């Protein structure tokens, strides 16, 4: 049996030692780091929340309690639905979609400019300067925005100093700071897929469209955007996923009375010590993410391999 195992083509091709290294590395990664933790979390999300000592005891059984809590609220609650958590969830999704679209709108002209209009050295310079801000920690970038948007922050001080407004605008309280920060946080992940996609378009196609009398808008709509579709899908998916799962930016920038969905998970997990419910909420987040990716793939007919490059 053993000798049979080692005569498989895989071993023949790579040699025994290297083949074993490949297998160990890949199995360790797929099984121990990716699959088992997720499955265990799924299992935990259907269990009651019991202290570690009572695991496997009579109080540890399978239940839908945590998912019910997400939809209907606690059993003693007055409301028919759990408006607080559902509200946080809905807001997170809606704002994430908005952030994704805003990113797309902001990045498209820049990506097109760098890819097709700018001369090569300018393009290189622009790309390098695009990357530099994103080597800095997400927390510190949000912190920079916080300095701007705080109630006694730079923007308010300048505006009141000039005399445009009498009182500071509550940017943080109304979550303007948060939205700006979320758009800021992952804009690079929209820029590069877009740039790569537009870059591969033949300039002659644009010229041809122009020669045949198409307007600038029409050229973009009919030539550039269809060509850049994989890049657009890829950028949108990455930005949406990261925004929905963002924790660092909301920690720094969200107002004290609103929550981002991962913050809710964090609360159940670390502050309320209810790991099962935290897991259940995580599963909900995961499902939404997967649904989003699949929908994007279905609508725009791209393969998963094209999304992540």
């Amino acid at each position, binding site marked *: 049996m053993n000798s049979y195992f080692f005569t498989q083509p895989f071993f023949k091709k790579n040699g025994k030692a290297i083949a074993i*290294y490949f297998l160990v590395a890949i199995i360790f990664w797929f099984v121990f780091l990716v699959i088992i933790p997720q499955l*265990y*979390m799924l299992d935990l999300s259907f269990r009651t929340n019991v202290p570690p000592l009572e695991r496997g005891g009579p109080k540890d059984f399978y239940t839908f309690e945590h998912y019910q809590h997400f939809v209907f609220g606690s059993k003693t609650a007055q409301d028919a639905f759990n408006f607080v958590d559902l509200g946080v969830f809905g807001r997170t999704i809606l704002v994430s979609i908005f952030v994704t679209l805003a990113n797309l709108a902001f990045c498209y002209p820049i990506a097109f400019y760098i890819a097709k209009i700018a001369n090569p050295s300018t393009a290189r310079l622009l790309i390098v300067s695009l990357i530099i801000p994103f080597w800095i920690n997400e927390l510190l970038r949000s912190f920079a*925005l916080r300095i701007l948007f705080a109630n006694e922050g730079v923007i308010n001080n300048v505006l009141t100093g000039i005399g445009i407004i009498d009182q500071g605008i509550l940017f943080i309280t109304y979550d303007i700071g948060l939205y700006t920060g979320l758009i800021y946080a992952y804009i690079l992940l929209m820029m590069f897929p877009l740039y790569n996609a537009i870059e591969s378009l033949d300039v002659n196609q644009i010229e041809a469209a122009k020669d045949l009398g198409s307007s600038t808008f029409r050229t973009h709509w009919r030539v550039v955007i269809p060509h850049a579709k994989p890049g657009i899908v890829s950028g949108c998916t990455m930005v949406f996923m990261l925004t929905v799962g963002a924790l*660092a930016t909301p920690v720094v920038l969200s107002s004290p009375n609103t929550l981002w969905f991962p913050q809710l998970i964090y609360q159940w997990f670390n502050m309320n010590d209810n790991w099962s419910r935290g897991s259940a909420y995580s599963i909900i987040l995961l499902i939404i993410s997967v649904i989003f990716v699949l929908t994007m793939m279905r609508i725009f007919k791209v393969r998963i391999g094209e999304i992540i490059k």
Partner: protein
Amino acid sequence: MTSSHVMKFMMGLYLFIFFTYLFGPLIIMSFTAFNSAEFPAITPWECFTFRWFNEGKIAYDGQHLAGLFTDWRLHDGLISSLIIGGGVVLLAVPIGMAAAIVLTQVKSQLRDIYYSISIMPVLFPGVIIGISTVVLWDRLAGLGGEGFISEIGRNGIFLTILAQTCFISTYCFLIFVARLQRFDQTQEEAALDLGASQTQVFFKILIPYLAPAIASAAVIAFLASFENYNTTVFSILSDQTLTTVIASKVRLGISPALSALALSIIALTIIAAVTYEILRRREEKKYALSQEKYVTEKAATSRIDKDYKVGFKIPKGIVAIILLVILCSYGGTQILKNDLYGQSCIDAADKEKKSKFLDQLQVLEQNELSDEELGGGNLGGNQDYGDIFGDPNLFQDFAF
């Protein structure tokens, strides 16, 4: 003014706005690192100072605001971040390499599934990877009794390395896949035909070919690990990394020491980026030269004579550097002239704030006294406390 001019102007304006949006906050934050005020701000500007990089300050109300070099929590966090980064590089690079090489050998039907699993971790939200690792290892630690497993299962650094490796391996995988796409398999076949063993082929051909990818994967893995927050905050348990320390600091209240930290990171980043760019250009030049030589040697008649221009060009960057130096020296002399730098300025600012603070303490005490005079009964909140909360700077300083 033709329409193309208008378009150009609009595009320039848009580029300007976009890059202001990207860099403006960072530049303003960098300036706040030099303001001596306790709250990171540009206006009102108190004094020019380096203290947020050094010792921090003891505020007028007695609390200590740590500077960059005296903050031991930050240092501990930095050390564990470095350890985790190293661990992740050691795990993720070999894993990514193995997975990428195997991808070239997998047959077509399995290939899609294999590829999907490989890139799945990037699509998981970071918080989920952190949580799933923690819940699994907590369970394993519980089952393992008092032994080694329970020890490492509750070790935040170990868990963080595992959790980060889960998705950082994918980054490495993608880097290796990109490099392997251009690999010429005939090299391997030639070596095998000449009698090399598979292990020799791996070490003598594949590894040297992949060397640049190994280097860039290691750098990317380290950086990704170093700045990760979403996964780390769950898996680190009771330990602290640089990012979790920063997060807890930001949450408690914001201090210019953080601006100082950010400025240091920005400086390091720019130096790294410039070095990388210079190295890359040198490499490109070398490559171009060797290609040219190759072509001229090939052409026997040497019709493609190329005269190498030896000239001296002033790089455009010099202008920017000179401008920067002039600006800095001008700003520096202005600051010195107006007595905005140094101990005397800071003392004056502190004194003013201290007296303000004392005034407000007095108001507070007076109000408490009048509360006593009321003689109980009416302990509810309907006394007039005056305007003691009027100064917003007062309570900002309590935040740390």
